[in-house]
């Protein structure tokens, strides 16, 4: 009799505590990739999705892309959605941290709950093969002599490449504000500028440079890892005499105010996925370094990174907000706004003069009523899309527009219009959601607590 108790206890605890490995932890997990499909964060999200699904750690895993402003739009939505959505993860990384600080973003990574660091890539400083610079100390000598004349090329301003340039300047005793950093919009453009010799040195992730290092068109000067990574024969920045280390890490966050239980559940799930052979295979395939870290260690790491990146961003930008960093910063806005003011002014003046000269109304009669009817349909769609969902709101827009355009309206035509609208909207909805996996708002009004638990992710369709 007694011997049955332990078994019963195990069974009960298995039922009550969902963090036991044998059971699928969650019915529906959402992974938010704060970038467009195709990029590094999206790839991380989708790789994680596959591993979690294949391992049965969650039944349905949905990846949502919320692109914009180096991940800060995704972060803002994720944080503002509140604590309700305990089954969602946000892919994050050093780039997002840098962007929130660089752009003075109103949201901070600290508002979300840290779950785990997953992978990372080390940064490499490289020069074109024709450059006289061969080692880091030579590069630092040239850079120190006249920092402004030494153009560094890399990815977006405030990104990892820029931050590393700032850290190197700081360690070399140069005011980071004097770093002449030329930001390119993509890794490809930056590498092209370096290959063409348009900048003196380039900073990028190792994988971006690797083929050119192998072919001998670029020369690696230093790598930002603590020690030489296996298979990469490049001196570290430390070996070059500067106390700088950096990794472009990627990890996952939970929503803000996550309870300890929920956090533990998500951490267990991510940990199991990250320690699976499938994930290890993904890392090998994509040449991502395994940098798994969770719990208090990840908290500490994140806090340290925030402090360090915050300091360097502040120094890169200078004491005053908007200190001139790049030549011509004010030129284009002033030219465009000034030019626009002049042209619009001139247009208004000439039109007024024409009106005085030719008093007859030059503009033809317009059917204002129909325009207003269509505009009302648009406004209605805008207002109702979130609460009523796409199908209802778009059907309304369709019917209102069609009615505005129809000159004759019989009862039969009305019904016909509604039928066409519903079928058409349903087809569009099907194409976008099922065909392309691009979810459209399904309507928050229909969310009862029961329905809501089945359909997570509504908060992201803002």
């Amino acid at each position: 009799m007694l011997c049955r108790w332990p078994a019963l206890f195990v069974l009960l605890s298995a039922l009550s505590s969902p963090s036991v490995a044998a059971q699928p932890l969650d019915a529906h997990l959402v992974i938010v990739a704060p970038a467009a499909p195709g990029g590094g964060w999206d790839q991380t999200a989708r790789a994680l999705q596959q591993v979690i699904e294949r391992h049965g750690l969650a039944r349905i895993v949905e990846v949502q892309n919320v692109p914009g402003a180096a991940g800060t739009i995704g972060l803002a939505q994720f944080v503002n959605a509140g604590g309700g959505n305990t089954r969602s993860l946000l892919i994050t990384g050093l780039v997002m941290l840098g962007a929130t600080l660089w752009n003075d973003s109103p949201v901070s990574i600290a508002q979300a709950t840290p779950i785990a660091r997953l992978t990372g890539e080390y940064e490499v400083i490289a020069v074109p093969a024709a450059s006289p610079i061969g080692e880091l100390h030579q590069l630092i000598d040239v850079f120190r002599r006249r920092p402004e004349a030494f153009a560094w090329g890399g990815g977006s301003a405030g990104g990892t490449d820029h931050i590393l340039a700032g850290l190197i300047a700081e360690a070399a005793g140069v005011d980071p504000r004097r770093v002449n950093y030329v930001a390119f919009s993509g890794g490809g453009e930056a590498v092209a500028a370096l290959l063409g010799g348009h900048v003196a040195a380039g900073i990028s992730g190792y994988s971006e440079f690797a083929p050119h290092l192998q072919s001998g068109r670029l020369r690696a000067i230093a790598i930002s890892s603590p020690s030489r990574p296996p298979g990469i024969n490049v001196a570290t920045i430390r070996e070059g005499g500067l106390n700088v280390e950096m990794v472009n890490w990627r990890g996952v966050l939970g929503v803000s105010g996550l309870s300890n239980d929920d956090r533990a559940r998500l951490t267990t799930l991510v940990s199991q996925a990250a320690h699976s052979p499938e994930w290890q295979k993904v890392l090998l395939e994509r040449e991502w370094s395994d940098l798994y870290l969770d719990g208090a260690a990840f908290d500490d790491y994140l806090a340290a990174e925030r402090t360090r990146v915050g300091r360097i961003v502040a120094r890169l930008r200078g004491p005053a907000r908007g200190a001139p960093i790049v030549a011509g910063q004010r030129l284009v806005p002033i030219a465009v706004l000034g030019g626009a003011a002049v042209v619009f002014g001139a247009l208004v003046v000439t039109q007024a003069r024409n009106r005085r000269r030719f008093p007859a109304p030059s503009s033809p009669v317009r059917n204002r009523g129909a325009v207003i009817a269509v505009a009302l349909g648009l406004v209605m769609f805008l207002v109702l899309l979130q609460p009523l969902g796409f199908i209802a709101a778009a059907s309304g827009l369709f019917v209102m527009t069609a009615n505005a355009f129809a000159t004759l309206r019989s009862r039969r035509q009305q019904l016909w219009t509604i039928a066409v609208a519903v079928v058409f909207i349903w087809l569009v909805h099907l194409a976008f959601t099922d065909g392309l996996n691009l979810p459209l708002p399904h309507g928050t009004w229909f969310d009862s607590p029961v329905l809501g638990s089945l359909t997570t992710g509504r908060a992201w369709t803002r």
Partner: protein
Amino acid sequence: MDALSALVEGFRVALTPINLLWALAGVTLGTIVGVLPGIGPALTVALLLPVTFSLPPIEAFIMFAGIYYGGMYGGSTTAILLNTPGESASVMTAVEGHLMARAGRGGSALATAAIGSFVAGTLATAALTFSAPVMANAALRFGPAEYFALTLLAFVAVSSALGDSTMKGLASLFFGLVLGLVGIDPLTGEARLSFGIPQLLDGIDVVIVAVGLFAVGESLFAASSIGLDPESVIPLRGSIWMTREDWSRSWRPWLRGTALGFPAGVLPAGGSEIPTFLSYALERRLARDPKGFGNGAIEGVAGPEAANNAAAAGTLVPLLTLGLPTSATAAIMLAAFQQYGLQPGPLLFTRDAELVWGLIASLYIGNVMLLVLNLPLVGVWVRLLAIPRPFLHAGILVLASVGAYSVNRSIFDIGLLYAIGGAGYLMRCREIPLAPAVIGAILGPMAEQHLRRALAAAEGSWMIFLTRPISATVLLVAAGIALLPVVARRWSSAPRERRTQPSG
């Protein structure tokens, strides 16, 4: 010839009945998705990429090439028929193409776009086959200063798209430039004209500007003439097929568009918009009847469409030879390569020769399939315009809205679309041309980035634009184009006649 025998080998691998079927499936899928407004080729490829993952590499590349070409052509179809370009490179196609469609010549517009895409795609792939390494190295000589000179050239060249009144054209252009200013300045992180709205930080997507001004603005304008105007859209007039005259007016623009598009695509930061602008401007100058432009000139579709496709093939040159993804689509293709453990770059051709030549062969096949699938469908697509006006405009507004939403999945963007659509309506009412606004929104930010990068690399010295030979030459050509009409007018008071000076 080494490349030739390798290519034959590639075709041998790629040309099996089952692979042809994959190509057809890819083109079909790509066209279907590309037709959805707001979904440009890059998004089409990204969304459909997972479909190819389960296939072995050669089959996957063949299907992928089909998806790519299908997506591009599908985007042109909606640009022509519904005036909803899915990406900035098909804006110029929409300008004349939609006018043709409204005049009942949608069939010819679609056909010249399809055949032009085929011609340009095939020629550009041939250029890729035989000159890739040479071209790629030459392209690296272009730095920020040269790119700025190029954008300036494009500005000068497309000022011919400003319309009849210079003042109104300028007003439209500046409207676009102001829209282009919105968002974080990528070089300093400073937010401009974003009024604290986070959704504006990344700037306004060009697709939203174009679809808002063209499609939403036009639907509102069409509403304003209900009951006052006779039907302004003629679904179909005459044959749906290209006439002899269409052919004779199209083939030169196809070739010129290819010649402009391919080199621009090869340039790592050239983009595919600039050649479409240059091609449009060039065709307008060379046209036997320049008055036709603005009323649906087939040259204005044939040239930019060819330029767009040639540029797309051109972006494969830096991708394959240098491993540099220089467009959104190329970046996704890079991900596709990596899926199969291929690292594009200088060593690709020696290391994975069979796959590369298989891919190049499949580009040719995808191109042919595009034509095979889409030419017979032209008649079906054109019927779209025969849909009763109430349903047509209702459908356009719904699709434009959902397209704007899918760009960033944000309802805010739909509001932005409508606001820009409202501006487009007011502009139409005052006869202000719309295309310059879209061109300004595309070129303005590009020009500024290149300008400031060049200045930064030169420590603020403006002389860099004149001391570098390529940049100085391009600027000289731009100055020539800008000043020639003025000089010529002064030279002879005779009426403007056909001029044939080269541009770009």
